[in-house]
């Protein structure tokens, strides 16, 4: 940064004289324009540039003590697991040169910071993207699905995908449909930044690795089950939803129990629900997607012209998050009829999150069914959206689209609602 006409670098040790007081410290990044110093006592101080005299002392010195890099020894008796990194909190640190939280960890970095992982498997790592999960899109899901397929094809006995938690449920659903896997494909992240001592990243990653070498095949999300560092839940990739903005227990299975729980201390897996076993299904990749699908949340008084907008933009499918059992304002019916007649597929889900859609109870629902709306059963709205993208990527046939949307393909529809 330039202070009073002279260029200084972050990390430089400087002396600042201001109002008769001398401050000495390391120049830190500043967003306010003030000179920010980390002083020897550890405190940060912000000083206005105006009236300050700055004297350069020396350039940045490397840290005096860092954790030694872990020596990764391959053990012949351990299974082969691939870690695919996409970025996110499990693999991010605060970059104090820029002040930003950045995702810059490679799989080797993850093993350095969580050495217990090397007791569970031998790892092969690949950095696919380094993005925040809100920057994901269907094209990146495809790249990820292709990488999962390739790693399994090359002999990986389990896959761990590190992912930001914000959109993890969408990626989990997308991979569930795109990759039919004979081995575990585990998505994991952390809710609390991995650069702090109390982060949930280590426990989540260790439990994820435990699941990756287990016989629970298919796509799952493994995250904290309680606020304590006690156990993780294994959630089915098509039934999981982020239900809290910040807490460790944000991820919950909706409309069914989690598949299993993993004890952090013993790494024992307790099965809680049905799952597809390792090797039961053959490896297959069906990665075509139709990204021109929308998810629309209805609210009271919402005009139906949003449908005309998407129709005009050439969208092929729309998932509606309706009220209660799956309703929208009756005045929407003509717009819905027009959209379906124009070739758009429309699927109804519920903003209640829990429970099943049923449009055969009230007259509005019956009108929606008569207009051609497909009931999304007990699918999460986000999962229904991803599934619709995937189904429309597989077939253009209207009857086949309807049949597939109402068929359980990857555990996304339960035909029984357990108490």
């Amino acid at each position: 940064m330039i202070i009073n006409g002279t260029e200084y670098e972050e990390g430089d040790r400087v002396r600042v004289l201001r109002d008769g007081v001398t401050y000495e410290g390391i120049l830190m990044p500043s967003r306010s324009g003030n000179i920010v110093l980390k002083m020897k006592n550890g405190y940060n101080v912000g000083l206005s540039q105006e009236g300050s005299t700055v004297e350069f002392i020396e350039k940045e010195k490397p840290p005096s003590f860092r954790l030694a890099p872990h020596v990764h020894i391959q053990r012949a008796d351990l299974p082969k697991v691939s870690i695919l990194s996409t970025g996110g909190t499990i693999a991010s640190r605060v970059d104090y040169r820029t002040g930003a939280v950045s995702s810059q960890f490679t799989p080797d970095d993850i093993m350095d910071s969580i050495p217990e992982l090397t007791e569970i498997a031998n790892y092969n790592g690949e950095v696919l993207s380094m993005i925040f999960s809100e920057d994901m899109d269907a094209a990146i899901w495809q790249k990820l699905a292709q990488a999962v397929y390739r790693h399994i094809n090359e002999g990986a006995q389990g896959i761990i995908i590190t992912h930001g938690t914000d959109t993890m449920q969408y990626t989990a659903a997308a991979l569930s449909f795109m990759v039919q896997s004979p081995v575990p494909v585990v998505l994991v992240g952390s809710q609390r930044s991995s650069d702090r001592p109390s982060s949930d990243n280590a426990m989540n990653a260790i439990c994820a690795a435990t699941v990756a070498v287990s016989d629970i095949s298919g796509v799952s999300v493994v995250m904290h089950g309680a606020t304590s560092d006690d156990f993780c839940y294994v959630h089915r990739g098509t039934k999981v939803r982020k239900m809290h903005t910040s807490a460790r227990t944000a991820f919950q299975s909706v409309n069914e129990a989690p598949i299993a729980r993993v004890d952090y201390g013993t790494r024992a897996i307790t099965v809680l629900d049905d799952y597809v076993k390792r090797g039961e299904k053959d490896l297959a990749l069906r990665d075509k997607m139709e990204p021109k699908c929308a998810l629309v949340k209805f609210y009271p008084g919402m005009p139906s012209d949003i449908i005309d907008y998407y129709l005009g933009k050439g969208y092929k499918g729309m998932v509606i998050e309706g009220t209660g059992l799956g309703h929208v304002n009756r005045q929407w019916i003509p717009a819905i009829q027009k959209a379906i007649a124009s070739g758009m597929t429309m699927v109804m889900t519920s903003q209640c999150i829990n429970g099943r859609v049923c449009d055969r109870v009230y007259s509005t629902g019956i009108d929606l069914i008569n207009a051609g709306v497909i009931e999304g059963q007990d699918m999460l709205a986000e999962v229904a959206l991803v599934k619709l993208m995937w189904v429309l990527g597989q077939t253009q046939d209207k009857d086949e689209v309807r049949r597939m949307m109402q068929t359980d393909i990857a555990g996304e529809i339960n035909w029984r609602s357990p108490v």
Partner: protein
Amino acid sequence: MMDYACNIDYRAIGLKAGLEIHQQLASRTKLFCCCPNEIRKAEDSDFEFFRYLRARESEMGEVDRAAAEQAMTRKKFIYKAYDTTCLIEDDEEPPMPLNPEALDIALKASVLFNMRPADGLPAHLLRRLQWLYRNALGESGHGHAVPGGRRRL
């Protein structure tokens, strides 16, 4: 030991001594959340949870040696929660901005002590990674309000 200490010319060796005073500010709510600022008895706790802390790099890319040693012992830290604590103290929610009332008290105290407030408050907080048992984050936020100043009491 006493004799040895008495024989040192402290002025010649440039000894500096300071006094660090920890004083809880009488603000209505806590520094980084809106919980009431009350000290509670352990028996009033209505919930407890545990965490294993790990050694991490500090702001400056360094790892505290003591923290690294402690992490190797795999200590289980048990925290007590109360009806006067919230997700922020449990490290389940990001901290709120610095309590303006607490800053106001600190600045008033600094004026009474004839100190000079630093510029740029309250923007520059230190994240101090710590291996203390007092909060669930394993770190605490510190602000340096004022340098220098003296007051004859």
